[in-house]
């Protein structure tokens, strides 16, 4: 008897292991021309795990505080064995995770995978996307370099524009009126404790819902397969789909390694609150579409302050996005076209504004 079988028997005696993993054995993945989009959620999860592992390793040397943060990251980059690799993988993985999370969200919208009964899966996914952006915003400040300092100043200024709660929110985020060492320790707390805790709970919920509700198929195919069940094609989740997902993770690992080795993440210059902001300061690429929009709104629209209007509009859009699944029809043959149209417009707007924001001076 092999060691694996002995271990399985041991677990079966105590935990009824076979019953626990039985659903995984029965789980199937629909097979059709667009099945490759199903890999995106798994890749995002893989990148999150990479983030957790590299983040824990960075924590061994990182010291939060205005007088130590930059120097500790510099130490990681120059003195710690493979420190440069860990930090670069962490930074690149963060950016790739934001990208795959966005791609996953748009694929869900275009394949209409958010329809009944998967509304809550979608809602939890959108909240996770917001959390991923929160990870990006809070993590960006941690090296305490000039760009991060001023980007945080601009970002928290924008948060301060929210009517009524804006000012207290800004002070809460900054730990005072200005961006200081207090902001850094606060952001560190959000980045390594609050957000990971929330994200882990939501990921568990999200994966549990996917497991419970199964994987959706595009509405057109669903109608066809319902009419003619013989046409239905599936792949076993374990091991067939899982092995393919594993291949995708290996490819992601290769891409991450290549990016980290060829383009190690820049450290920049230590933040100095007393120097003027560098010209043309911009946030990370995934905030550019919002930043550029706010820049383009006139300072006064009718009687409302332009920036306040922009922040309010994005708030409303975020809420609508969260509730989008509840506007969809339950009948797969009568899905709402306007939702697909809205998703196409949103993708074009985000991509267009990001490119424009990148090129604009």
């Amino acid at each position, binding site marked *: 008897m092999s060691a694996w079988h002995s271990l399985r028997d041991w677990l079966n005696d105590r935990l009824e292991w076979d019953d626990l993993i039985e659903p995984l054995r029965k789980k199937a993945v629909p097979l059709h021309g667009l099945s490759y989009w199903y890999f995106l959620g798994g890749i995002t999860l893989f990148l999150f795990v990479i983030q957790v592992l590299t983040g824990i390793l960075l924590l061994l040397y990182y010291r939060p505080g205005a007088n130590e943060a930059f120097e500790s990251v510099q130490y990681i980059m120059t003195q710690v064995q493979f420190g*440069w690799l860990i930090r670069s993988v962490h930074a690149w993985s963060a950016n790739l995770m934001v990208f795959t999370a966005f791609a996953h969200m748009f694929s869900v919208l275009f394949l209409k995978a958010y329809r009944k009964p998967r509304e809550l899966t979608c809602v939890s996914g959108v909240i996770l996307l917001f959390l991923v952006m929160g990870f990006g915003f809070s993590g960006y400040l941690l090296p305490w370099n000039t760009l991060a300092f001023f980007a945080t100043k601009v970002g928290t200024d924008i948060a301060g524009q929210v009517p009524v709660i804006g000012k207290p929110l800004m002070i809460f985020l900054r730990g005072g009126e200005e961006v200081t060492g207090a902001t850094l320790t606060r952001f560190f707390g959000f980045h390594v404790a609050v957000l990971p805790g929330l994200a882990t709970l939501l990921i568990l919920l999200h994966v549990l819902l996917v497991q419970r509700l199964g994987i959706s198929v595009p509405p057109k195919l669903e109608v066809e397969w319902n009419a003619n069940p013989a046409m239905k094609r599936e792949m076993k989740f374990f091991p067939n789909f899982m092995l393919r997902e594993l*291949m995708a993770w290996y490819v992601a690992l290769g891409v991450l390694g290549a990016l980290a*080795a060829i383009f190690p993440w820049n450290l920049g210059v230590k933040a100095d609150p007393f120097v003027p902001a560098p010209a043309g300061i911009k946030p990370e690429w995934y905030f550019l579409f919002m930043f550029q929009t706010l820049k383009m709104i006139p300072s006064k629209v009718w009687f409302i302050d332009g920036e306040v209007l922009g922040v309010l509009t994005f708030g409303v859009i975020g809420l609508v996005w969260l509730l989008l699944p509840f506007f969809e029809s339950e009948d797969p043959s009568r899905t709402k076209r306007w939702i697909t149209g809205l998703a196409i417009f949103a993708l074009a707007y985000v991509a267009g504004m990001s490119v424009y924001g990148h090129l604009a001076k």
Partner: protein
Amino acid sequence: MTNIWAVILARLPLAALLLACSFAYAETKNSCLDCHSALPDPLGVSQETFSHDIHAQKGLTCASCHGGDPTSDDADKAMSRKAGWKGKIDRAQIPQLCGSCHSDPSFMRTFNPSLRTDQLSQYKTSVHGKRLAAGDTKVAVCTDCHSVHDLRAPSNLASTVNPVNVANTCAHCHADPNYMSAYKIPTNQFADYSQSVHHSALAVRGDLSAPTCTTCHGNHGATPPGVAKVQNVCSNCHTFQAQMYEKSSHKAAFAAASLPGCVVCHSNHGIRHPTDAMLGTGPAAVCMQCHTPGDACDQARAGLQSGLSRLDEAIKGADQVLGVAESSGMEVSEARLGQDQARDSLTKARVTIHSFRTDLVDQDIQVGLKVAAKNLQAGKQAMVERNHRRVGLGISLVAIALVLLGLRLYIKQIES
């Protein structure tokens, strides 16, 4: 309570006086401007022009300098000798008239306690002052430099004596060959100065501490510094160079030949940014204007120049390697910072050149070379590390490709 009333009662006369004064000031009439604002030049002075004048802003009127009765609308009464009217002030009397207030410390303290009151006495020691006393009214008097009727504080950017405008103000006379023809002095100072490193620092870089005419010549006591004292002028800012020069063999040699110290190599008004080529033998060279090729000094000169060149090239070499390492994403900020130390050594060596001692200059050069070599090594190390990373990446990618191939084959096997 009684105390408060006592204080109020005690202050009442003073308050009444202040109130009366303010009414009187508000009602002050200046009939001079009523007429002169309508007159053409040179008698015209507009209300708007005079409002910019610091004297007007401090409450002085036309009568403060010209006398007369500005409260009268009758021109004959306003400009009557009986009312103390002086008319146009004679140029020869202008310094004395300005000095009647500006040389009075008690009076000037009421306006600005930190204002100097030695302008007139200084002026009398200047070339301008001495010539004026000798009857030459073409020389500059107070109003020529400070302007008149729209005179502003020197800190005001529009003032003719603001540091950025001083050279233009002096050039008004000193760059005019016709005006200066009687004095037999050159008129190219302003043209030379406009090409100089000092002008570029002041006008281009906006460094108000950079020298202009008055920094070296003085202002009210303006006079050429004199051949023997030139280094005293330059040393006000170039302290270390002056200390080195004081101890050098050139100090005595220049003095014996009546040569004007710093000016011999750097010129005076048209001082250009010094380069190491000044130590060479090319068109910019200065040593060989006096020294003979092949002599001991020429050999020392060649040694100094080659030392500076070696350090300069070592710094540039390290910069280049560090630049490539940095653009490859390597973290070399410490070595980059170290390069500033090497550059400081080069600057120090260039200053030490003024001692004209090869041993002292060599000390600075060696310090710089050591730092630059260390930084170069750090850059090379970073490049080696970069190459190791790429080799490591290659091996990892091959391993990943093999795992992918294995997985693909396994999937094929279980699905066949």
